[in-house]
């Protein structure tokens, strides 16, 4: 293990209901390394093992076999200290807004850092920084979380995890149910947080467009196994394989791949509309002159 790997899993497996008729291998023999500071996208159909996998990474589920190294240390070496792993690997669940409970937004965001043993003043400082990262305006912080809109509640919940300053931030479908601009904004904020803090971020999403925009590498899970772990462009260059796994590629990538097949000199690993434009404008303009 080199210093640059924040997480390393070795033959990680989890089986539900061992010894019962409902025995099911949710995760099978996954070995991989996640680099310090990378933005990793995780995709896979429902039931592919994504959720079980990420819950093992922060010690919420104990693997039935295999190991997880966090900064080179086996997270289950001392089971009594597993709580510390949860501070270092922060998890934002799906629809986290249902987990808000405090009297005020700021108290809710402080809950994590206070549990870590920070003084009230330090927790407050962390909470304010976190609120800033997710774009929660200061005038909302003293309100009850229940007075906020859905999108604001979601941001408050994410801020609560960011405030713990985790080495690794895992987000499970953070933009589900948000309108297009809300999606866009939240995704940009998460991306900026990642750039500024240089923290490792793991993003689970069913939106190939979102993954295409922000991820450095993509882990594809299929039937509990690691199907691919490659750069985002390499993963989305394999449209047919992804389709067989019930997945898709971003629309713009699909278009560019078809144009490439038609003989246009374009990059089949194009992931964003802007990148497609940069290639197509000169090409199509040139065509005009002929």
């Amino acid at each position: 293990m080199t210093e640059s790997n924040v997480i390393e899993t070795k033959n990680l497996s989890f089986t539900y209901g061992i010894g019962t008729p409902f025995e099911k291998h949710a995760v099978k023999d996954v070995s991989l390394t996640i680099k310090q500071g990378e933005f990793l996208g995780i995709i896979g159909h429902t039931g592919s093992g994504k959720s079980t996998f990420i819950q093992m990474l922060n010690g919420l589920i104990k693997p039935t076999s295999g190991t997880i190294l966090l900064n080179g240390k086996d997270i289950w070496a001392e089971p009594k200290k597993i709580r510390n792993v949860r501070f270092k690997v922060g998890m934002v669940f799906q629809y986290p807004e249902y987990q808000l409970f405090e009297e005020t937004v700021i108290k809710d965001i402080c809950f994590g850092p206070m549990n870590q043993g920070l003084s009230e003043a330090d927790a407050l400082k962390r909470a304010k920084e976190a609120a800033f990262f997710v774009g929660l305006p200061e005038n909302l912080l003293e309100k009850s979380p229940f007075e906020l809109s859905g999108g604001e509640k979601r941001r408050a919940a994410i801020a609560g995890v960011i405030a713990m300053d985790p080495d690794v931030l895992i987000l499970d479908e953070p933009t589900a149910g948000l309108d297009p601009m809300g999606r866009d904004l939240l995704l940009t904020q998460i991306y900026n947080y990642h750039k500024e803090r240089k923290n490792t971020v793991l993003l689970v999403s069913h939106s190939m467009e979102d993954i295409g925009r922000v991820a450095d590498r993509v882990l594809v899970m299929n039937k509990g196994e690691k199907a691919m772990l490659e750069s985002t462009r390499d993963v989305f260059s394999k449209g047919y394989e992804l389709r067989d796994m019930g997945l898709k590629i971003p629309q713009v990538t699909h278009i560019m791949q078809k144009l490439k097949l038609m003989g246009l000199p374009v990059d089949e690993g194009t992931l964003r509309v802007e990148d497609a434009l940069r290639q197509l404008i000169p090409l199509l303009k040139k065509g005009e002159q002929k």
Partner: protein
Amino acid sequence: MSFIEVRDLKYTYNAGEEDAHEALKGLSMDIEEGEFVALLGHNGCGKSTLAKIFNGMYVPLSGSVKVDGLDTSDEKNQIQVRRKVGLVQQNPDNQLVAGIVEEDVAFGPENLGIPPLEIRERVDEALKAVNMYEYREHAPFKLSGGQKQRVAIAGVIAMRTKCIVLDEPTAMLDPRGREEVMETIKKLNREHGITIILITHYMDEAVQSGRVIVMDDGKVLTEGNPRDVFSNVELLKRHKLDVPQATELAYKLKNAGIDLGGVPMNTLECIKLIEDYIK
């Protein structure tokens, strides 16, 4: 007379109280029988409130809503209205009640007091319509998200509703699940003539409808066929919406002086336009 007629509809949550919130502010629309309408709008624009008004769950505070000629404000019409308009919600896990798929689908018709033989018939028919017949004896909790949503849709069809309102039915589904639900909705509309009102944040779903209605701030902002509405990229973006990537690409090419001569709604149309442009 339209199947659904909404006239100057207003609805306020906690009306008269300190925390009153005006969700619908004088909205009018018509939905014809057999239409497939996509209802768009940013979070908090009033879409979900409207969905609950369509099936009589909420009653207008002022203005009127008529479903198949029945005034939804009239309490004695309530049960009739719910039989005509079924609602499918976002989270499939919150909608299934029984331990076996076919029992779940039978739940609605049982409550309507339908005789057992006819229930059997309706359940089979509904499960076939959503392509879930072979799963009729399965446990709902073991199904995928797309399958669960299709069972929820079957539960509505088994009540022989004329119209189904779906409130973000694919928000929690993976790409294949989303496709399954969209194919099911289109088939029900096309082959069974069921009126579909689809609330969604996914523009690639909205382009598959017959008509798009965009809501903003409790009112109708614009409406029309998908191609016309999605041509107006600026307007949509101003109201926190978006267009599919294929549409955006063509729009931005046009801004750069490359007019492909059309507004593509999906990847195939976009590729075709570029292909024609090169030739």
